[in-house]
């Protein structure tokens, strides 16, 4: 008992040495989730991030809405990057009946959007709509043995409540407007929630929180860049743009770990439970982290008393586009159940451990 208490006190003291203030990542996440930012339309969420950042840093923003700042100088150069875009759709065209045909922007299961409310983010503000259920949804199929047309973004439409193209246009809706599901936050308990766009707004929130708590002596003798990039969900496009100019030695991509902590998944791999700490995403579909680097991270986490789990799963990460430029990619995460859904699940303890881990790495990385 005494040993445990001593370890706890040491961990608290150690964490105080590299971070200032209480973590705010959870509160930031609950706000930033509701800021729209479909891939290619990240302006509002980039505004939010830029507005939140401490004034002491020279923040840069490019035409794509990538936002970043660099602090310190010297080697190594460490880059942390989280993507600010989210899954959704864009208006492809307005039909003569006033309905919207759409193009998808990233991979959501279309079946989970059927007969569900959405918001069209027009220049004049959000307009509500409903993804129309498939035609004949309530009728017995005439030919049960013939395959049913798939319910996909390419063949569904959105009902706005109007019946002509002119009425839809009068609402301010135009081709190219981004569309998100209408979001709700499911609070299972204090500190445990589910919602749309936890991927990767949780990464954005952890990185913002770390930036807000960053002490200048933590990055003495090294270069640290924080970046919030765009268009990850449609092909790591924002990160690729950043990689043209940023040449880090190490890149820590902050993004979801696709956890199999779910009743529907095989737990052969990826079974890192929600609520048991941040994640080092050792192997995914785009990167294999060297074992030596995993050991370095785990040693830092242990020293600071930060719970971190290591696992392998699927999905790519923004850090992988920096590999060709000579960086080592070490993706960091939280265990996320139900990835790419309306109900992405996250535990506050995991998010705060992730934010603490970012700060610990800045302080201790060599």
């Amino acid at each position, binding site marked *: 008992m005494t040993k445990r208490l001593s370890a706890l006190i040491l961990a608290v003291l150690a964490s105080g040495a590299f971070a200032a203030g209480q973590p705010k990542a959870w509160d930031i996440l609950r706000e930033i989730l509701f800021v729209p930012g479909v891939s290619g339309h990240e302006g509002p969420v980039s505004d939010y991030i830029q507005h939140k950042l401490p004034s002491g840093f020279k923040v840069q923003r490019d035409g794509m809405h990538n936002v970043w700042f660099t602090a310190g100088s010297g080697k190594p150069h460490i880059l942390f990057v989280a993507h600010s875009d989210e899954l959704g759709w864009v208006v492809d065209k307005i039909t003569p009946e006033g309905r919207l045909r759409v193009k998808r922007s990233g991979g959501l299961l279309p079946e989970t959007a059927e007969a569900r409310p959405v918001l069209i983010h027009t220049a004049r503000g959000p307009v509500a709509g409903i993804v129309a259920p498939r035609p004949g949804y309530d009728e017995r199929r005439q030919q049960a043995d013939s395959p049913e047309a798939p319910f996909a973004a390419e063949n569904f439409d959105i009902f706005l409540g109007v019946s002509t193209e002119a009425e839809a246009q009068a609402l301010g809706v135009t081709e190219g407007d981004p569309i998100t599901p209408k979001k709700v936050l499911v609070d299972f308990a204090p500190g445990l929630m589910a919602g749309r766009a936890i991927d990767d707004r949780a990464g954005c929130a952890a990185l913002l929180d770390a930036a807000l708590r960053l002490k200048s002596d933590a990055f003495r003798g090294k270069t640290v860049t924080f970046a919030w990039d765009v268009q990850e969900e449609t092909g790591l496009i924002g990160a690729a743009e950043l990689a043209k100019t940023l040449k880090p030695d190490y890149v820590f991509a902050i993004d979801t770990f696709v956890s199999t902590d779910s009743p529907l998944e095989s737990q052969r791999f990826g079974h890192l439970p929600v609520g048991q700490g941040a994640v080092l995403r050792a192997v995914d579909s785009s990167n294999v982290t060297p074992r030596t680097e995993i050991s370095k991270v785990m040693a830092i986490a242990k020293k600071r008393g930060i719970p971190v789990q290591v696992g392998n799963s699927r999905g790519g990460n923004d850090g992988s586009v920096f590999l060709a430029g000579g960086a080592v990619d070490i993706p960091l995460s939280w265990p996320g159940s139900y990835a790419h*859904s309306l109900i992405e699940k996250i535990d506050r303890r995991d998010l705060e451990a992730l934010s603490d881990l970012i700060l610990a790495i800045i302080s201790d990385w060599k």
Partner: protein
Amino acid sequence: MNDRIAKKTGLLLALACLAVGSLRAEDVWSLTKTVFPIPSTTGNEDLLAGKIRGLLPPGLAVEEDGLGTVAVRIGGPGAPTLLLAALDGYGHMVSGITPDGYLTIDRPVAPPHARFDAYLLGQPVIVSTVRGPVQGVVSQPAMHLLTQERRKALVENFSLENAFVDIGVRSEREARDKGVEILDPVTFWPVLTELSGDKWSGPALGLKAVAAVLVAVAESLAKEPPPGETVIAWAAQTKAAARGRGNRPALGALRAKTKWDPGRTVVVDVIAAGKDGTAPVPGKGPVLILAKDDPTALRQAFERAAAGAGIACQFLAAADSPLALPFAGPQSEVLTLALPVQFLNTPSEVVDLKDIQALQDLLERFFRTGGGQ
């Protein structure tokens, strides 16, 4: 008993807080918003019944039938005219709790269509327990881990066999500690979406709008009772069919027929609308269902009421619904009036506010002009 009532009152308040919008019961649209978030599935109608009781004018004595139906009697005496709507909608209920704390679910009655269960996949839901609403989600596979085979099994052919409600606990005991019990209703998150063109959308919105219309009519008739006697009833278990041979009437309606034995019955139901441009059309007024070719006295009374008040109506030839079936006989007259609902029996039922208002106006006009006699 008092403790149970207090808990249910707390649950009602908490559920109401989940809804969007004003909660003042000052008109039929506000009433619709008030009752919208209250779950009411077959066998679990008590929360909505309680809410309706609370909204009714204090002077009216509420009658019950032991199955969950509530009714009020206005005016009299005489063979009553019954105004009847459903209190229950289609939905799901907790059927079990797994050792690791996930809830399995079932339906109390057959679904309205084959895709009904599929809408649960990956959605936020509310489990209404005696301790209050418990927030949960219906699990879905992660996109990154879907193979073609798993997609076919878990998504395209999703069924209640694969429906697990995650309420954020790790054991059966933790689930029970939250108050979850077998049979608790599981319903979609009550998100009301205000669309353009005076339309609202949400789960079970048609049912709730009709229930609100009857509350508004009861309020109005109670202030100034029309000639004769009127019973206004919100019938429980209407989605359950009475057993027996031949046509299967709605159980709740059959019991209402037995209890009140009305001479005339006006059933207020919902009807699928706006399908491929065919009638009925949302926004064009309430729908009079013409089950017989003969223009009955009841139908003529409604047509006169509509014409007198300048209320547009739609007409549709269709067989009597299970709600109307028990009342169709040589000794009694029945007419079904329906609210047009687009995307009926999906999580986003769409109703036109003009239709809700017109339905209320038509019913009031009908009773005020002696249509019930």
